[in-house]
């Protein structure tokens, strides 16, 4: 039988054992005042999917790796303390005690359900109150267990993400502005220096060169080799083009 099968059966047994222990310890500690409630009624308030019950899921090994602590009854006590602490911050609930918080169905995962009862232990506190209390103190609860919103999950309470820290001016516009200004300055400098160069050139050489340039068309420069007779001068007709056969030289 695989390890998993062994573990799940053991898990089931352990849960049962825990509940049995809890019942027995409660019975032992029960004062005559609490006797009338009876252990089964007491625990019925906390069940999977009970009214006003929340499921909690912890991923300790994912969060802490080697430094993961084992989940035992002491950790459960701390959890109850944190829940009681959160409830005490709610107006009208300042008298919440650790014993009012009930845990049940602890699995190997680690996950469990909990409810918070009122001082008379007759009924459970409404889910909205518990939800708002946890939401307000989420950071403190997370820190108590060295976990975060993703590794300590309250399944019916979605965590709100921290608002994104947007600077007033997006960073990319700043970088863009810097590069843009540099490019504009460089262009202006080059254009101005080009204009200045042209003015200096215009004052210098005579007009003869200009007219020669204008009448000249695209002529190929050869190093000491006479110009090719096929050079065209703009759209003027060149006689060599009349005899088109000559151009088709055989390979």
């Amino acid at each position: 039988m695989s390890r998993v099968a062994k573990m799940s059966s053991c898990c089931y047994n352990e849960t049962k054992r825990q509940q049995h222990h809890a019942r027995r310890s409660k019975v032992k500690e029960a004062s005559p005042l609490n006797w009338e409630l009876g252990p089964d009624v007491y625990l019925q308030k906390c069940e999977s999917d009970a009214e006003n019950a929340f499921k909690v899921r912890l991923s300790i090994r994912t969060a802490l790796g080697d430094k993961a602590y084992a989940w035992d009854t002491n950790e459960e006590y701390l959890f109850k303390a944190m829940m009681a602490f959160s409830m005490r911050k709610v107006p009208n609930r300042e008298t919440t005690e650790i014993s009012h918080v009930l845990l049940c169905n602890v699995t190997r995962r680690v996950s469990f359900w909990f409810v918070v009862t009122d001082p008379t232990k007759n009924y459970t506190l409404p889910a909205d109150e518990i939800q708002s209390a946890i939401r307000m103190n989420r950071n403190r609860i997370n820190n108590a267990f060295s976990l975060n919103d993703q590794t300590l999950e309250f399944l019916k309470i979605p965590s709100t993400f921290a608002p994104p820290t947007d600077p007033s001016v997006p960073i990319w516009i700043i970088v863009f502005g810097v590069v843009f200004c540099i490019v504009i300055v460089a262009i202006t400098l080059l254009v101005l220096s080009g204009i200045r160069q042209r003015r200096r050139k215009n004052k210098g050489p005579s007009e003869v060169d200009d007219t020669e340039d204008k009448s000249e068309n695209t002529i190929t420069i050869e190093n000491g080799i006479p110009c090719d007779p096929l050079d065209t001068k703009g759209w003027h007709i060149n006689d060599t083009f009349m005899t088109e056969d000559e151009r088709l030289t055989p390979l």
Partner: protein
Amino acid sequence: MEKARPLWANPLQFVFACISYAVGLGNVWRFPYLCQMYGGGSFLVPYLIMLIVEGMPLLYLELAVGQRMRQGSIGAWRTISPYLSGVGVASVVVSFFLSMYYNVINAWAFWYLFHSFQDPLPWSVCPLNANRTGFDAECEQASSTKYFWYRKTLNISPSIQDSGSLQWEPALCLLLAWLVVYLCILRGTESTGKLEQLANPKAWINAATQIFFSLGLGFGSLIAFASYNEPSNNCQKHAIIVSLINSSTSIFASVVTFSIYGFKATFNYESCLNKVILLLTNSFDLEDGFLTASNLEQVKGYLASTYPGQYSKVFPLIKNCSLEAELDTAVQGTGLAFIVYTEAIKNMEVSQLWSVLYFFMLLMLGIGSMLGNTAAILTPLTDSKAISRHLPKEAISGLVCLINCAVGLVFTLEAGNYWFDIFNDYAATLSLLLIVLVETVAVCYVYGLRRFESDLQAMTGRTLSWYWKIMWAGVSPLLIISLLLFYLSDYILTGTLQYQAWDASQGQLVTKDYPAYALAVIGLLVASSTMCIPLVALGTFVLRRLRRGDPAPVA
């Protein structure tokens, strides 16, 4: 007295200009994709063969023509034959289309570069939804990098029909990109030389195409660059050097890209596994940390048999994680550069540094190629006396940049990326093949191979090797004709053209048909450049006829 043509300061500057033009984004995002699609290392065989048989000869041809004629593409082809100046015009038109849409890529690279100075990187986390209880729905469906690309950068509309409004952020980046290009070309091409696309027949066709486009043949840029050379420059050696460096850059880029693919695939596979593990752990309340990748299958089997009811509820949610499936996703183009690479970068240490370096590299590649494109447009314009008489060089450059920028704003609309894909796929492909074919035939048969050979020998002092002659006259034209026939038949057979549209609700791409007006634009793109060749030839013929008819020829 000749008009003094500006020259490169030294041959090295010319070589660097050609390399910077040829080595572009296609080396980074097209070649690795082709390698992956056509068998990895074995794609190198058709690629290298095509390089030797097609790439180098055609590159040498263009450089030699430019160096011999010492003019931009229009003037050079007019010198060979007035009927063929249409080839030059077609080159300029294609370059114009290319520069319109290519600079948009630089704009996107600028956008990502400016956003790299943040912690955390904006594409590594999903934004929160309205009531801050979770992440944005679209981002959940897709991934944070896809969301940043499709929603934040492009703000893409669901189809090409919904044009949407102009997005001011990419428009600003486009403006900046054009300003940078203008800054570099302001003083003319001589200042731009500083330090800047295979037993399966499809593999061979793609290798031929990739070599062709990767070297940037047919745009007129190489003719423009070479026209500023000294006539005695050894362009044969430079042609070989440029093509070899271009190919080795492609191969190097593939090595890097494949390691990025592997990293991303491994990371995604492990996240997928972790999600399944968490799902099972929570559903069955197993001990935290008990389920690992190694015992996952065994445990799944056990749970299925022991708790069949609960397992069948959970089963639809369990994804089948497969490393092979992750590795099989081959991506090319903007998807590779802006989605896959950013996804890999966000998972690295010091991701801001890698991001800045990566987008800076993309910018260098893109701007280097842009300078070559604008040179192809500007050189014929500045060569033509009609225009350069009235306007100084700076004004012509400024006007060209302004017109291109204004038209390029179309690509910053919400549907802009779909129009970008149209231009990317159709503006340059068929037309370039035709242009280079006509170029080769013109030099070999119209101008005369013997004559060109003697010109080159007189110019450079070296005899033309028989290898080049055979390639120019026979092999390369045949290759191009077969490529042309293949693509034409492919277009005709596939029928209606389709495109990939982003579906925000599903968070993935869906295939849609192009509407009629988009097909018309595609037809116009191809026709406007290819028709230049016969139209100008016809026009020259008609003009000459008219002049022959006139008793007094017009001076």
